[in-house]
């Protein structure tokens, strides 16, 4: 069954590009939900049926690391996988994200082929 995806990025442009890249990569997915920061993402996860989260790290209000930490503390949503898509790819910050439950990371900028390569197995 096609998975429902939550895109978390403060840039509406980037949310559109990621959505387009998923289609261009030929990946099957169900509904796409959007949030502009970690706090909005938590609200969506509490209300909607989401199978995987694709999240930026560097965001105002609640960033991607704070989002992972808060999500991990909520039993109802803690097991939903989160994949980071960010300009932040240093070992330290990605290591912290993974220690908080992130299942992988993709560096911006990316091509549809790269999206297919890294997200295909998760979709």
């Amino acid at each position, binding site marked *: 069954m096609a998975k429902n995806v939550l895109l978390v990025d403060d840039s509406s*442009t980037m949310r*559109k590009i990621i959505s387009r890249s998923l289609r261009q990569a030929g990946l099957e997915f169900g509904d796409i939900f959007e949030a502009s920061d970690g706090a909005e993402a938590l609200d969506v996860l509490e209300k909607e049926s989401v199978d995987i989260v694709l999240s930026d790290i560097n965001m105002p209000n609640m960033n991607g690391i704070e989002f992972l930490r808060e999500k991990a503390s909520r039993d109802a949503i803690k097991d939903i996988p989160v994949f980071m898509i960010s300009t932040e790819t240093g070992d330290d910050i990605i290591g912290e994200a993974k220690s908080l439950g992130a299942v992988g990371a993709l560096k911006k900028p990316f*091509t549809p082929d790269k999206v297919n390569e890294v997200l295909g197995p998760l979709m």
Partner: protein
Amino acid sequence: MQTDASCNEHVLQENCTQYLIAATQDVFASMIFMDIEPGEPLTGSDIRFQTSLSSMIGLAGDLRGLVAVHCTREAALGITSSMLGMDVEELDDDVKDAIGEIANMVAGGMKVSLADHNVKIDLAIPSTAVGKSIRVSSLSKGNRVLVPFTTSAGTFGVELQYIFA
């Protein structure tokens, strides 16, 4: 005699322009699908470059300063249209967001290149200004380079201002 630190700074000053060009080309090749051609880099404190929209992102850490993307109206509209895959005709929020994201990704590319020299930087959140005559002041005692790029949609410039912390 130069210290290791000053040697490293000298090497970085030599390479920063190339890192800036490479990061910009990577963004345009991967996500905007638009051919761009770098021109002769401009340096010095009194750089003049026609711009209708400028997106800036602050740099902190071992190297402080900013990365900015300056666009003419035509370039901003053309780049955003190509990036979003739809016609954009006004300098609206979509355009400000798109050019801001380009600045963010170029700065991210610079961060990766500088990390190879053990120079760690943190990125702020990008901000964008729209106007008929935007002027970005230079950091006192800082280094400044602006690389003009030519595209089918017009000209834009990518600027790096920095000072070693």
